[in-house]
C-alpha cells in the first residue's frame, strides 16, 4: 500500500522529472533587437531600390516619359494626398475590397466545410474549385460587364470569383491536415457532430484556414484592381484602378507609378497590420512559431 512517505517521494521524483524534461522557454528578444532583425532589412532593401532607381534616372537610361524620377512620383503622391484625392480613391477601393472579402468569407467557409466533410460534394466540385483558383479573375470582367453592366455588381462579382476559391480551398486543406487522432479523441470525449465541428474541427483547421484567408484577401485585392482598371464608368466612382487607368490615359507615368505604389502599400499594409499578427498569434499558441 502507498504510505504518505512513499507518496511524497513519488511527488518529488515526478517534480524533478517535470523540471528536467519540460522544454525550456524561449526568451523573447528585446524591442531594439527585434527592430534590427525584422524592420531594418526591408528598410535597407527599399533604400537600395530607391538608390538604383535614382541612379538609372540620373543616367537618363530611358526617356523621362518612361522612367520618372523618384521625386516626381513622390510629388504625384503628395499632390493626390494634399487634394484629398488619394483618400477618396483609397477609400473607394479598400471598402470595396473589404466588403467583397467579407462576403467571400461568408460564402467560402460553409462551402469549404461541405467540400472537406461530404465526399460526394468533394468529388463533384472539389477539382472545379481548385481549377477556378488558377483562372485569372480578370477573365470574368467581360462576362460581368455583359451580365451586370458597368456597375458595382460587376466589381463585386469579379472579387468574389477571385477570392472564394482560395478561402474555401484553404479551409479544405486545413481540415485535411488535422491529425486523425484529434477527431477520434473528440468522439471519445462525447462530442456530437456539431460540437466536434465547433470545438475540434474548426480550431484544428485554423492555421490552414488562415492561410486561405490571407491568400483570399490577396486575390480579392488583385481582382478588384483588375476589375477597376478594365471596367471604368462615371457611375463606378474613382478607385485606385481607375486612378491608374486615368494616369495611363493622360500619359502621366508619375501618376501611374504613384498608383502602383498605393496599390502595393495597401497590400503590404493589410498583410502587416492584419494577417501577420493573426497568423503569428495562432502559430505561436500551438508552438509552431517557425520563421515568424
Amino acid at each position, binding site marked *: 500500500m*502507498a504510505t504518505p512517505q512513499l*507518496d511524497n517521494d*513519488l*511527488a518529488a*521524483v*515526478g*517534480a524533478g*522529472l*517535470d523540471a*528536467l*524534461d*519540460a*522544454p525550456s*522557454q524561449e526568451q523573447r528578444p528585446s524591442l531594439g533587437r527585434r527592430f534590427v532583425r525584422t524592420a531594418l532589412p526591408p528598410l535597407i532593401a527599399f533604400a537600395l531600390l530607391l538608390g538604383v532607381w535614382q541612379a538609372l534616372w540620373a543616367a537618363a537610361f530611358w526617356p523621362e516619359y518612361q522612367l520618372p524620377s523618384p521625386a516626381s512620383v513622390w510629388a504625384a503622391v503628395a499632390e493626390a494626398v494634399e487634394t484629398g484625392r488619394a483618400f477618396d480613391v483609397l477609400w473607394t477601393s479598400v471598402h470595396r475590397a473589404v466588403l467583397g472579402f467579407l462576403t467571400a468569407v461568408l460564402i467560402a467557409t460553409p462551402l469549404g466545410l461541405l467540400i472537406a466533410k461530404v465526399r460526394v460534394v468533394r468529388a463533384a466540385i472539389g477539382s472545379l474549385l481548385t481549377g477556378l483558383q488558377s483562372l485569372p479573375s480578370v477573365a470574368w470582367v467581360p462576362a460581368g460587364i455583359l451580365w451586370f453592366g458597368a456597375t458595382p455588381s460587376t466589381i463585386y462579382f469579379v472579387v468574389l470569383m477571385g477570392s472564394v476559391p482560395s478561402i474555401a480551398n484553404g479551409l479544405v486543406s486545413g481540415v485535411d491536415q488535422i*491529425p486523425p*487522432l*484529434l477527431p*477520434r*479523441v*473528440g*468522439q*471519445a*470525449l*462525447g*462530442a456530437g457532430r456539431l*460540437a466536434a465541428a465547433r*470545438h*475540434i474541427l474548426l*480550431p*484544428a483547421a*485554423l492555421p490552414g484556414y488562415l492561410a486561405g484567408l490571407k491568400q483570399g484577401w490577396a486575390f480579392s485585392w488583385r481582382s478588384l484592381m483588375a476589375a477597376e482598371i478594365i471596367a471604368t464608368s462615371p457611375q463606378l466612382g474613382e478607385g485606385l484602378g481607375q486612378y491608374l487607368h486615368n494616369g495611363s490615359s493622360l500619359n502621366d507615368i508619375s501618376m501611374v507609378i504613384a498608383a502602383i505604389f498605393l496599390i502595393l502599400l495597401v497590400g503590404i499594409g493589410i498583410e502587416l497590420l492584419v494577417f501577420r499578427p493573426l497568423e503569428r498569434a*495562432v502559430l505561436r*499558441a*500551438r*508552438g509552431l512559431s517557425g520563421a515568424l
Partner: protein
Amino acid sequence: MTATLESAVPSSVDAAVTLSAVRKTFGHGPNAVTALDGVDLRVAPGEFVCLLGASGCGKSTLLNLVAGLDAPTSGSIALTTSRPAVMFQEAALMPWLTAARNVELPLRLAGVKRGARREKAGELLELVRLSEAGHKRPHELSGGMRQRVALARALASTLGSAEEGTPGLLLMDEPFAALDAITRDVLQAELVRVWRETGTAIVFVTHDVREAVRLGQRVVLLSSRPGRVVREWSTVDGDEPALVQDITSRLREVISGHAAA
C-alpha cells in the same frame, strides 16, 4: 452510448462492464477478418484489469467497442458506469488549448457551467500534480506531463459527465508505451495512486508483462487473430517474479502457435 442493461444477468449489477460472447468481424465475405471471437469479460467497479496480448489480438478493437466508438458484430456489452473515458498512446491534447482548457473540454462538451468546469479541472490537475502547469500549452510540456494532462482529461470525461456517485471507467490503450523508461516508471506509480484515490475502474491494454503484473489486480491474456481470452491471473496474492515468468511463458506459447499456421 451502447449501454444495454440486461436484467436477465444478475451478475451485471456488481460489474462495471460485462462483455458476453462479443464478436467483431471487419469486412464481408471471404475477406472478412475476425478481430474478436467469443470474448467474455467482467470488470468489477473500481477494479484494475490489464489486457495483455501480442499484436493482432484485438486489444484496441475491444477498447473501441467498450468505449462505444464501434459496435460489436454479435454479443453484448453492458455498462453500469458513466461514459467510459479513453486514453491513447499519444496524449492527443488539443494544441490550441492550455492544459487546463484541455481538461475542461469534456466538461464543456457535457454542458457543465464555466465556474464548475474550472473548479473540477483544477481539482483534477491537482490530482495529477500539475496545478502549476494549467496555463501552459501542450508544446510547453514534457511527454510525461502531457500524458498526465490526458489522464486528467480522461478522468474529467468519465467522472464529470455523470452525476455524483456513478462509478467511472477508464480505458487505456498502451498509454505509456511512447515514454522513456524513467518517466514510465513514475507514471505507473502515479496511475496506481490516482486509481486508489478516485475508485475508477480501469481497463489497461499493454504489451508489457511486467507492466501488466505491476499495475493490474487481474491480468487477462488474449490470443491473436482472432482475439480470445486465453487465461486470467490474479496478482493480488502472488509472488511477482514467478507470476511474470508464468505469464511470459504462456504468452510465448500463444505467439509461437502462429508460426505453424
